[in-house]
């Protein structure tokens, strides 16, 4: 099952927005800047 998100060439150009302060960050920063060994990412359908 193991694959690598970073194998996609798109990964360096995908930005997501912090919902609170609306600053943009690179998607890959979720794991590259984390201080924890594992990072769970949950994609929602919608808020509510």
């Amino acid at each position, binding site marked *: *099952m*193991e*694959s*690598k*998100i*970073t194998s*996609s060439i*798109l*990964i360096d150009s*995908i930005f*997501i*927005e*912090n*919902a*609170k302060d609306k600053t943009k*960050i690179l*998607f*890959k920063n*979720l*794991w*590259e800047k*984390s201080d*924890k*060994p*594992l*990072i*769970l*990412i*949950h*994609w*929602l*359908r*919608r*808020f*509510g």
Partner: protein
Amino acid sequence: MMGASDLNASIQKINQKNNNIIDYNLIGLAHLDYDLFEENLVFNGKIYIDEKKQTYKLMCFSRMGVLSGFGMMNPNIYLQSYYASKKGFKGNLKGDGLQLGGTVIVDKNGNIVYSHDQKNYTDYPKEEEIIKFIKEYKEKHML
């Protein structure tokens, strides 16, 4: 079945027992009703928006469609709405309701070590499945 708030509670429990092993991030499609959502969610992670759906496309998450009756024939959807409303979530029909999501766990190098793609609106990873994964991961990597 777990929604975002149940998943959040599970991750807190896992972190308490496993020396804060895991970060928790939510990604949504749009800012619609984010404030109301945040009010009702006691949340320890970070919430992000991906309006262009780039990460959804990257992860190849499915969309509900006509052939699936837009997912509305699934009785679990009404049960989940009931439990969500008991927790203060009023429900939200704005935005793109057909896009499904999912859950992945990645390591520091971006390797996907666990994944669960939503097959329908009420399909979430089971808490025991995530706990089992964390236990096995810790043993394998001697954490």
